[in-house]
């Protein structure tokens, strides 16, 4: 019995096997997009969808299904409220930041077509990178703010990729949009890397300053000062490592989504090439068949001529015998 419990305990250790958290986050965002693109429609709503004839009525339907506070906020935003305008320059963690995010979410909801939605997501992703850059430059590594901006950044990227995939599955030609989005992802990646690179340079400058101060403190025998500077140096190192780790996660997510889109593009190209190949093969087969038929016709003609010749000779022979 004891042995059995031990075996079960060992097997249970497999629960600790790690999984890729970045992938799970990205999949959740894609799932959210899929859910909103393909909602469960209740019979009453289904009727509304079926009678939906114009883009305008589609927009009304969207508004109808929105929660009331969202509609009020939408009206405030569309009417160009001062708060909304002011919120646009806010950073994560600041009071007006939720308004900025709400504005973006509403713009995304009311975007009239998938292409516009993808472009907005890419634009918002760029805005998050700009926020990261500003935060790093102004406040240094502020983990909460960076987490907010980077997790939203990942969401925007995943949403853009997912919308394209959903469209592709519907049979739409998304090669141009996917190509543009891949290029944009590439730009975002460079911008994000640059933002962290700038911050890294700033770390090195600060580190050098602290080292100089430490040297001074050692020379003057200021032990309390030395301790303080050492603690600051340790904090600086930790902040640098943290920023580095966050950058790696953001870049990895971006790379994964970029690869996914590129795979889709390749897939489309391959399908097009295969279709082209199949068409060419069909043409060749047709030509071959026509040639065969031609040869057959000529052969039949020759045979007919030969048979006629034989008949003529036979007739001639019969006449001569007579």
């Amino acid at each position, binding site marked *: 019995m004891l*042995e*059995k419990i*031990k*075996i*079960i305990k*060992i*097997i*249970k*250790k*497999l*629960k*600790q*096997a*790690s*999984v*890729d958290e970045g*992938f*799970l986050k990205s*999949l*959740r965002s*894609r*799932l*959210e997009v*899929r*859910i909103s693109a*393909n*909602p*469960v429609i209740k019979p009453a709503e289904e009727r509304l969808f079926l009678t939906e004839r114009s883009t305008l009525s589609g927009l009304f339907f969207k508004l109808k299904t929105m929660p009331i506070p969202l509609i009020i906020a939408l009206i405030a935003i569309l009417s160009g409220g001062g708060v909304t305008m002011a919120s646009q320059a806010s950073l994560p963690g600041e009071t007006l930041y939720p308004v900025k995010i709400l504005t973006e979410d509403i713009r995304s909801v009311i975007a009239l077509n998938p292409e516009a939605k993808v472009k907005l997501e890419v634009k918002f992703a760029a805005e998050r990178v700009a926020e990261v850059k500003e935060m790093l430059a102004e406040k240094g590594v502020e983990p909460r703010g960076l987490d907010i901006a980077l997790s939203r950044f990942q969401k925007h990227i995943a949403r853009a990729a997912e919308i394209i995939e959903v469209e592709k599955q519907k049979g739409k030609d998304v090669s141009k949009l996917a190509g543009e989005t891949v290029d944009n992802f590439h730009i975002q990646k460079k911008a994000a890397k640059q933002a962290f690179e700038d911050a890294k340079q700033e770390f090195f400058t600060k580190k050098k300053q602290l080292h100089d101060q430490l040297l001074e403190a050692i020379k003057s025998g200021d032990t309390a000062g030395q301790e303080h500077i050492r603690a600051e140096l340790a904090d600086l190192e930790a902040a640098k490592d943290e920023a580095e780790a966050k950058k790696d996660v953001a870049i990895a997510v971006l790379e994964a989504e970029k690869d996914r889109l590129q795979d889709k593009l390749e897939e489309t190209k391959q399908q097009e090439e295969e279709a082209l190949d199949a068409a060419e093969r069909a043409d060749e087969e047709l030509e071959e068949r026509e040639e065969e038929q031609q040869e057959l016709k000529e052969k039949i003609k020759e045979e007919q001529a030969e048979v006629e010749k034989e008949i003529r000779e036979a007739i001639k022979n019969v006449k001569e015998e007579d």
Partner: protein
Amino acid sequence: MKIEKQFLEAYDNYAAAILRHIQFRVSDQETAQDLAQEVFFKAWQYIVSGREVKNFKPFLYKIANNLIIDYYRQRPRADVPIEDINQKQISYGPEQEKEAEREISASLAHKYLSLLEDEQRQIVYHRYVDDLAIKEISEITGKTANNVRVIIHRALKSLKDYVGKN
């Protein structure tokens, strides 16, 4: 609660475990991630088609099982020796002090499971790693609850015999 919210909640509760389960059973992490994604996309498609899901956990595992079976139908299992599967592909958490000990236990767990037949391995994993109830395993595998119990009992007995001999 709205079905959309319930579904995302089910994702939050079970996605990591489902991915871990698939990683255990297929050859590489990339395939496992593709299949895990497919599990949730298919599950949502099922819900959208108007059908009801009473218990998300066995429902998601059932889709995962079907996808794994399809995957191996397209690609013969002989390509992937079970001993190689997870020891190479799965890395374990970062806590330094217990890592070595954990790796030894995990590789021992892999060793034990590799000694079992496919069906036994799957059911034992469902029971002790996925923490599924006998009734849920029966729902996923299509076997009766008694049958599941017997399979687990036999699997543990054969492992006990193995440990005794070695």
